[in-house]
């Protein structure tokens, strides 16, 4: 039996996994109003549709007794009949605590369960209570199904987009939802960045661009530099709770006032919101809209002129314009330096929005890619890049500063907003009392001066500090933000090395136990999917070892005698075969055996390596000395 020697690759160009585990990875735009799933092949992205060609899946879920959750148009149609069983715009609650939404309760189309201020909100839907994470997971499951139908194979990996302005808690909630839905998140990509990627690759754009994304529930504006395949985000800003939904609310309030009468029941209020959305969308084409309402057994007719609508929403649009200016300012750019403005999101169809954006950037915005689809297309491109390799490079930033609460409730910034990610920043603190052995650490995100004005992400206590005089301990707190914009905090007492690391599971997030419980309850295929992931991971590991060994044999095979070589080859063949199979325990065992058997070989190679380095050096030295003598 002969050993097949693999080709040696250039550093950094080691081959990607084999076709078998090169699963198709999809791109998902998980929107407030509409969600989409797309796939890219050979950098050509396309949105996956249902049989009758519908691309957008309304982000609406209905929970009827004794039935699986219903998602999409069907669920939206149920709002009329069962308003209390239907959840929409749930993205606005991702990563939010009960305290955050209590203030908004009157204006939200949800019935919020009372709870602790710093816990994740829960919604009452008919007889049951669901978290926003579970509702989002139901939407993701529907998209996963759609993709599996369209592609006719299992889909377990995805790039999911999030508003650039999403904070750590909302990002973590999104990842949790994916996990519940049986999707492995390859990367969270910011929505405007995804849009820029789709634009840049499609139109070959170069230069500095602005992306203005006004969707159903969120607003983002980002400035990016596009150059030779590099997409570098210079600055980003926005508002994670501003979008077309807010326009709907203004219209709904107006209609309710015209109708008069007592306050509407929550169900009627939801229907009124749907009607308001219709009026708003009509006004993008027509200068006047008419509507008939049939609520609480009373029929009424209403008219709204575009000019009136524009006057109503002007303050909200102004807010987006102020944010756009602030981002230009953060990027230290004048609007004249922006080469183009890309419009994204359904709400950029509102004529007033287009006018104001054109005004502030001094140019007509670009709109040649469908603003509904561009984010999903970008996500699909990135999903392909991550699984199949690519030359493009996305360099994104963190949208909001991360800080730590200090004395007097002030905050000290540890990672400033618009820092490129991944990043790690450390700050040193000390104790303020003699003999102090513990230190509370409060992690916050936001731009305000006081801790309480910002978003509280997590609290933990570093314990076990040896008692010292006040000011003698040196506690180094490190914030590490990964490429998804998710934070890990660690703290270490430098004199003694007492250290603690916490992945910030935001206070508003699910606990690991809750997560496991939900996984158990909600996923028939949960265990299977998990098993499959573990198998793929074992295969990746096993292949890595084989590759390493074969590379080593190619250069240093002479260090082994025939018996040793034969035994290593035999074990490698066993591992090879195990990898082709589907028993991850067999792979692990074969890997372990091969690893053991090649220890001695490794040691000999290391010896040889050091001797070579020494003799190379000695030669250099000799040459130098000889050169010196000739002088």
């Amino acid at each position, binding site marked *: 039996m002969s050993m097949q020697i693999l080709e040696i690759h250039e*550093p950094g160009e*080691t081959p990607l996994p084999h076709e078998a585990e090169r699963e198709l990875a999809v791109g998902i735009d998980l929107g407030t109003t509409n969600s989409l799933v797309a796939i890219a092949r050979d950098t050509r992205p396309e949105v996956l549709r249902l049989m009758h060609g519908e691309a957008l899946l309304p982000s609406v879920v209905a929970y009827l007794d004794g039935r699986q959750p219903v998602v999409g148009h069907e669920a939206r149609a149920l709002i009329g009949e069962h308003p209390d069983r239907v959840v929409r715009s749930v993205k606005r609650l991702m990563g939010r605590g009960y305290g955050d939404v209590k203030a908004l309760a009157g204006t939200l189309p949800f019935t919020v369960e009372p709870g602790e201020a710093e816990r994740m909100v829960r919604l009452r839907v008919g007889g049951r209570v669901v978290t926003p994470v579970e509702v989002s997971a139901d939407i993701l499951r529907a998209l996963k199904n759609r993709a599996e139908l369209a592609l006719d194979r299992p889909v377990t990996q995805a790039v999911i987009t999030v508003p650039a302005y999403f904070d750590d808690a909302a990002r973590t909630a999104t990842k949790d939802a994916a996990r519940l839905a049986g999707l492995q998140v390859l990367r969270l990509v910011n929505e405007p960045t995804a849009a820029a990627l789709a634009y840049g690759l499609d139109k070959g754009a170069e230069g500095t661009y602005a992306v203005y994304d006004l969707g159903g529930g969120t607003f983002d504006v980002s400035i990016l530099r596009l150059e030779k395949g590099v997409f570098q985000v210079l600055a980003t800003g926005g508002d994670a709770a501003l979008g077309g939904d807010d326009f709907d609310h203004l219209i709904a309030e107006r209609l309710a006032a015209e109708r008069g009468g007592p306050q509407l029941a929550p169900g009627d209020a939801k229907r009124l919101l749907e009607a308001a959305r219709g009026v708003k969308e009509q006004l993008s084409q027509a200068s006047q809209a008419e509507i008939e309402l049939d609520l609480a057994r009373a029929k009424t007719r209403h008219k709204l002129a575009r000019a009136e609508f524009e006057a109503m929403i002007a303050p909200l649009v102004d807010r987006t314009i102020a944010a756009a200016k602030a981002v230009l300012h953060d990027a230290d750019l004048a609007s004249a330096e922006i080469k183009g403005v890309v419009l994204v999101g359904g709400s950029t169809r509102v004529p007033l929005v287009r006018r104001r954006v054109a005004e502030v950037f001094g140019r007509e915005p670009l709109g040649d890619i469908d603003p509904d689809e561009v984010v999903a297309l970008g996500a699909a491109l990135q999903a392909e890049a*991550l699984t199949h390799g690519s030359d493009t490079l996305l360099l994104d930033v963190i949208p909001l500063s991360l800080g730590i609460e200090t004395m007097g409730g002030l905050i000290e910034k540890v990672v400033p907003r618009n820092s490129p990610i*991944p990043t790690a920043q450390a700050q040193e603190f000390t104790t303020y009392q003699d003999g102090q052995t513990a230190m509370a650490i409060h992690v916050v995100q936001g731009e305000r001066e006081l801790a309480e004005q910002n978003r509280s992400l997590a609290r933990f206590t570093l314990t076990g500090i040896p008692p010292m005089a006040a000011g003698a301990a040196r506690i180094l707190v490190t914030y590490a933000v990964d*490429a998804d914009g998710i934070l890990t905090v660690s703290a270490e007492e430098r004199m003694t090395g007492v250290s603690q690391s916490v992945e910030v599971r935001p206070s508003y997030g699910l606990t690991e136990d809750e997560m496991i419980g939900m996984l158990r309850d909600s996923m028939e295929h949960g265990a299977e999917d998990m098993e499959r992931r573990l198998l793929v991971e074992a295969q990746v590991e096993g292949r890595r070892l084989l590759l*390493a060994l074969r590379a080593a044999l190619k250069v240093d095979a002479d260090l082994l005698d025939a018996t040793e070589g034969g035994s290593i080859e035999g074990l490698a063949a066993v591992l090879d075969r195990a990898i082709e199979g589907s028993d991850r325990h067999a792979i692990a065992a074969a890997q372990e055996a091969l690893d053991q058997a090649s220890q001695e070989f*490794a040691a000999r190679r*290391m010896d040889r390596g050091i001797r070579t380095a020494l003799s190379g050096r000695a030669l250099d030295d000799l040459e130098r000395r000889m050169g010196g003598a000739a002088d």
Partner: protein
Amino acid sequence: MTTAEATARGEAQAVRACWSCRGPVPARERFCPTCGLVQEPVAGDHFARLDLEPRFDIDATDVERRYFALQRQFHPDRFAARSAKEKALSLRHATALNEAYKVLKDPLGRAEHLLSLAGRPVRADGAETVSDPELLMEAMELRERLSEAAAAAAVDALLAETRANSAALERKLGHAFAAGDFAAAQKLALRLRYAAKLIDEARERRRRFDR
């Protein structure tokens, strides 16, 4: 043993074992020459991280070109389909590259980094100000002008002036570093730091006028 031999021995010991194939990896290599896998980042200054000579006069586009080229190799997006260990290593490389780029693309960052490499850090707490009353006066005067600026135009004028001043300081820093005059560089860097702070504050004020 001669010193040359001692250094040689030191370098040979700096050969690391690849975590994957356990083969020898020369100290500065980022990938294993045998199996090609990514290795631990080595400790080093920001210049070394971007394969640049430790100099003040560097073209900003050079810094950027190196940064992009290295991020293309090390960014976590390049390692999404790889083993957990490789992912973790790529994260550390990419983090270090971002930090090096942040420091070196900015002349003030570059100057301060060079000074700290030379063992003459510019104190962030501004302790040197006391010994330089002239600088203190200058800074106070400018800050006063900023707080009195009643219109956007006044802030703009101050900004333009401070930026011109910064550019002049950067030129002088270039000469000081070229001449190896670290004492002068230290003073200049401190002044540049004050100017940068003033620019930040002025920009913040300008932003408020814009709203």
